[in-house]
């Protein structure tokens, strides 16, 4: 009798790590499934209203990443364009940009972003930094004055903050 009670106790105890294992495996499976579904079903990043400073930063940066310099020129302020000293084009891969803040002061604006480069590998090798775009309002539209250096089209606009 005592032996049987002992056996039952043993089985219960042995079951404990299995329960923990099942719980942990379910958590991991849930993370994987949710991540897979979310990452693969969502489209690209939402388009920000191009009338706002953030919207201009998005459109300009997209054009630079796609090496579409003609479109990018369209977002530069006339002052920068008039004195443009063409910078060497950068090839930008795996750039990720998130807006940290956007401040408008009358006819000028500063958009602070966090830029992560080379995040394609395993999450550890990415290099993140905070950068800023400055803008000026010209004829009702926001135009870029300065950008982070990787995204500069002209040398004289290359210095961000």
């Amino acid at each position: 009798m005592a032996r049987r009670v002992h056996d039952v106790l043993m089985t219960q105890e042995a079951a404990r790590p299995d329960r923990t294992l099942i719980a942990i495996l379910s958590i991991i499976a849930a993370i994987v499934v949710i991540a897979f579904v979310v990452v693969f079903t969502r489209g690209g990043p939402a388009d920000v209203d191009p009338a706002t400073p953030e919207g201009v930063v998005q459109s300009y940066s997209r054009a630079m990443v796609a090496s579409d310099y003609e479109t990018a020129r369209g977002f530069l302020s006339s002052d920068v364009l008039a004195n443009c000293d063409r910078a060497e084009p950068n090839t930008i891969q795996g750039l990720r940009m998130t807006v940290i803040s956007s401040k408008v002061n009358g006819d000028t604006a500063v958009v602070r972003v966090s830029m992560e480069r080379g995040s394609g590998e395993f999450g550890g090798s990415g290099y993140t930094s905070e950068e800023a775009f400055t803008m000026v309002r010209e004829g009702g539209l926001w135009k870029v004055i300065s950008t982070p250096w990787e995204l500069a089209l002209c040398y004289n606009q290359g210095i961000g903050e």
Partner: protein
Amino acid sequence: MTSTTATPSTTPAVGGVQTVRRVITYLLLATTVIIAASGLSGLLERLLTVNRVEVSFDNYGLATSLASALIAGPLAGLLWWLTWRDSAMARDRASVIWPVYLMLMSTVALLVFTISILSWAADAITSGWDPYGLAVGIVWALVWLWHDWMWRHPRKGPTRLPGAAPAIASLIGLTYGAGGLVFAVGRLVDSAVETVTGAVLVSDPVLQLVLQSLVWAVGGALLWWWHWFRVGTRTQSTGFANVLLVFIAGIASYAVFALGLMLTLWVILKLVTGMPEPIAVTLDPLGIGLSSAAVGALVLVYHASIVAGQPVGVRAATRLPSGGVSLAFAASGVGVTVNALLATSSNSIIEGNIRSLLLGGLSALLVGGVLWWLTWRPLEASIPERVATPGRRIYLVVIFGVSALVALITLLVIGFQLFSFLLDGGSGESFIERSRQALGLLTATVLVAAYHFAIWRNDRTSDVAEEQVRRIARVTLVASGDSAEIVDAVRAATGARVTVLQRADAVQREPDVAAIVAALDGVEAAHVLVVAGVKGKIAVIPLEG
């Protein structure tokens, strides 16, 4: 070279002021040998290039070489004569500083000599025969041969740390060999891929690149073969050789194999899901992935067959770190997956490559998870035989320690980002955006720690006795004839270090192995003398200290 039976009596060397003298002497010897060798190689280099046209004669360089060779050289010789004299060696031979000096110096010499010779040979494939680069290799090869000769000297070679220097040399050879092979095969696969994608515009001839890697592979293989088979590291059962075996079979080759599998799976997943990136970028890690998996598997399979013939302690000590390596892969996979999931939560305006990140995490999780399942076998993790595995508690404690360290670091990062976010007044997204890597790793660490804590608690409540306690630290066995079998049995039964004193006279009907092991049962002492006597008599004498 069976080290245990060949080990002579190890009377500890006299310590105190003698220890300080030894440390200073060997430090000076090492310094003068290094300076003299660099001076000699500088002079030899000039000798090999006498027929070159000198644009300007480098007097400073020549003066440095001459001073190094002519001043440090004789001093090194003098110091060596002082330490190598019979009277000095009689005092110092049993000191642990002597083998440590030889081990460090021969490892340094071997590294300098092999790296310079092999890179010279690899360069010779492109730039042709040029004796200029050989000087360093030749001089340091001589330094290595000299130290190797001292290590193996029958009367003056060290009595402590048996087999340590050859074991390190075999590891160096294996690293060169496996590394060279990985790059050669990887290069071949890459060039095959490139002919399909046609993306390469400028490159050295493929054959030349492969040959350069093969030079390292062949050189490393020779070095490994010499030390592993000829010198006999393979058959050694010293502590050092065991640690080496566990490191190669349980950790290094396993990690290379898992890394290769992971990279390959990552490429496959990216191909299957159709990444919006150039095909050449997607296929880039394929060569190194396939070759690491293949070479890692080769090294792993070979060493696993050797581990299979080892005592149970070594087998368990190999299996547990393999589980740990796969666990690390799986946990980083979970971390990266969480990282990718969190990346979708913030409203980035340029998205980067989250899919590639997620697939990287998934491939690490899959490869690490499957390997962990096979090595740790979680379904039978708590059966009594497994609970009693030697080293299991150490493994669990190491896991807790590493988890605590990772948790501490990630919590610090998260705390820093949280406070800077609060003080900075950024947007709501930027906190998660900035700390998602740390959050991912923290999640994985918590899961790992939770599982192993459950295992730990279960081990504590199970009625399996504590791990085998070492009651005897050292056994000195007096026996005649070949006692390798007895040594292995005593070591397996007690976990003690065994030293054999060979009897001069032959003994009739020596006691058998089982009787000796039985006689040691229940004995508790730091050091035990066992005399295997005539007609099966056994004397077991506990000694002090």
